[in-house]
């Protein structure tokens, strides 16, 4: 029986929240998630099982594909009764069916951009602009301290709406990555206040 006394005994009733980390291949999603997560990366092959069945069982070459894409996963304990999960969206298009599942219920998303391969993140920006209701921010990852373009150029290149926050970060730096997550929550907060009834 799920008695409330035994729940409070073990200090349970924990709320979990989620932020989605999106962006193309090699833009720094894994780096960002791992710089803030308190847990080791998970083997997430099982999440893809639905995709694998029937589609990937035997590729045309006949060689069994055991290579799956490790999906980024992180967890941060914010309070004893409040956990924040980070889910990276898979870059490959054949796993896009997972985007909806992973992003459902998220408080917001961040799309990471590498200005040297900005095209890698077009799909993610497009998804959050048109196919998702999630609040999102765009973060330009400064690789090796370089930052080749100014933010206005990036906004123009992405054709990003003015109301989408655009920030810089260094995904290797924990403080910077935490700052990105704060920007996501702040943006979600500002939108929730606008839409809050009354």
């Amino acid at each position, binding site marked *: 029986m799920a008695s409330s006394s035994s729940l409070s005994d073990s200090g349970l009733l924990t709320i979990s929240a*989620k932020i989605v980390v999106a962006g193309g291949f090699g833009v720094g999603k894994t780096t960002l998630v791992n710089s803030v997560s308190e847990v080791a990366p998970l083997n997430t092959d099982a999440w893809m099982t*639905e995709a694998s069945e029937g589609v990937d069982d035997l590729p045309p070459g006949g060689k069994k594909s055991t290579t799956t894409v490790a999906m980024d996963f992180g967890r941060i304990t914010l309070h004893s009764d409040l956990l924040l999960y980070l889910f990276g969206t898979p870059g490959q298009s054949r796993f896009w069916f997972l985007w909806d599942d992973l992003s459902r219920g998220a408080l917001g998303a961040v799309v990471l951009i590498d200005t040297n391969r900005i095209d890698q993140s077009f799909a993610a920006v497009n998804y959050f602009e048109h196919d998702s209701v999630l609040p999102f921010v765009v973060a330009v990852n400064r690789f090796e301290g370089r930052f080749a373009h100014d933010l206005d150029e990036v906004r123009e290149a992405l054709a990003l709406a003015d109301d989408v926050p655009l920030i810089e970060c260094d995904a290797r730096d924990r403080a910077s990555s935490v700052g990105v997550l704060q920007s996501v929550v702040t943006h979600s907060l500002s939108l929730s206040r606008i839409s809050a009834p009354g």
Partner: protein
Amino acid sequence: MTDPAKDVMTLSRPKTNTMKSKRVRPYTLTGGRTRTRHHLLVETLISVPEFDPVLADSLMPESRALYTRACQRMSIAELSATLTLPLGVVRVLISDLAGQNAVFIHPTAYAYQNNPQVLERILDGLKQLPV
């Protein structure tokens, strides 16, 4: 590394000798069901308020593994990954366990419509993280 939940899963169980093959197509486990009565997001936390060994013994190996693993409060995504069970299967089996009051489904921020008070607490928690 020992994996108690895996041991549980591979124990031979005379009562369920109808399951001869170790390889069962995932949705056979759920009777073909893919929908659940409970709204289970990947981040939804599951815990076991009071572990009942008799109940555990009566469960299918996969359900038993989930039940055992959830004794350490764990998210749907982590249960799926650590037990290598598809997300959809985890959802259906956990929903069944919840229907028996065997597991507790914790609320998500989404259940609170990501309301400002919850978001404020999250922001506050992020600001207090050691960096």
